């Protein structure tokens, strides 16, 4: 990608992301009063990650069947509260194993 096209994007991404993290720690030090806003903000991460994961994860390996194997393993381990690293690696291994089985 050309640098002229790239740099404005990366600048916008970095500045927006930094301001979101920085302003509440420096400028707005008062707690939020509205219960709705508070709840809304606390649910946002789950909604974002849910919408980003499905259905995208099903296409992340180039084969629906191997992706499904990875998703099943990741869901089971996450549900049990395993760490990020464990879940990420186990999902990759499940995809690799499924690929191996499909080659047989």
């Amino acid at each position, binding site marked *: *990608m050309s640098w002229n096209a790239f740099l*404005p*994007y*990366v600048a916008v*991404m*970095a500045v*927006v*992301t*930094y301001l*979101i*993290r*920085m*302003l*509440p*720690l*420096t400028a707005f030090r008062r*707690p*939020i009063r509205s*219960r*709705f806003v508070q*709840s*809304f903000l*606390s*649910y*946002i*991460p*789950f*909604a*974002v*990650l*849910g*919408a*980003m*994961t*499905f*259905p995208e*994860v099903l296409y992340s*390996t*180039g084969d629906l069947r*191997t*992706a499904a194997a990875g*998703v099943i393993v*990741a*869901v089971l381990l*996450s*549900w049990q*509260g395993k*760490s*990020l*690293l*464990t*879940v*990420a*690696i*186990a*999902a*990759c291994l499940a*995809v*690799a194993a499924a*690929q191996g089985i499909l080659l047989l």
Partner: protein
Amino acid sequence: MNKEWLKGLRHGIPIALGYLSVSFAFGMKAVGDGLTWLQAVLISATNLTSAGQMAGLPLMVGGAGLAEMALTQLTINLRYGLMSLSLGRKLDGSMGTLQRLIFSFANTDEIFAVASAQPGTVGKHYLYGLMLTPFLGWTAGTLLGGVAGTLLPAFVRSALGIAIYGMFLAIILPPARKRKPVRFVVLLAVTMSLCFRYIPGLNRVSSGFVIIICAVAAAAAGAALYPEKEGDAP
């Protein structure tokens, strides 16, 4: 060497290892999508956010407008604002405005989670240590993925493609299991996202806006139906 700083560094190691594998996948995908490895590393070193970077990639490559990029990042990363608000109450007197300006850069989901879990207050030495190892892991992983990712055999590359989503699932599912409102919000967001992908007409909406619409609608529905009580954990 400062003891608190070393403790922070040490607490950052598991985060760094997790980041290493996920950012490897990001670097590989970015280069696969047509960026140079240096561009991929620059994104990681200036953003330090998995979800935002993953969502930003197709927008860049697809030539989206800068406003769509800004709005997408705002929505996806809005959660950091809440984390910063929450963490602000945990900082001790060593965290003046300058220190807050520096630490803000690294307030990711995982760093926030570890810092919040510390007993009592946290200070600048600990936080500087805690932000350093994950930053190095995230940047180095992107570099390795960008440079070496295309050298890997195809089956390894496709297996790594799922790593970042494994991490997302590991973040959302444990609280979804424990709290009904979170379960509701996740299911609603996923259902909407599926509609935007598979229903003709709706599937013409671009990826950034889909995430914004799903996230805002699901979180608002959750907040309306299940307003949190005072003092609930964020």
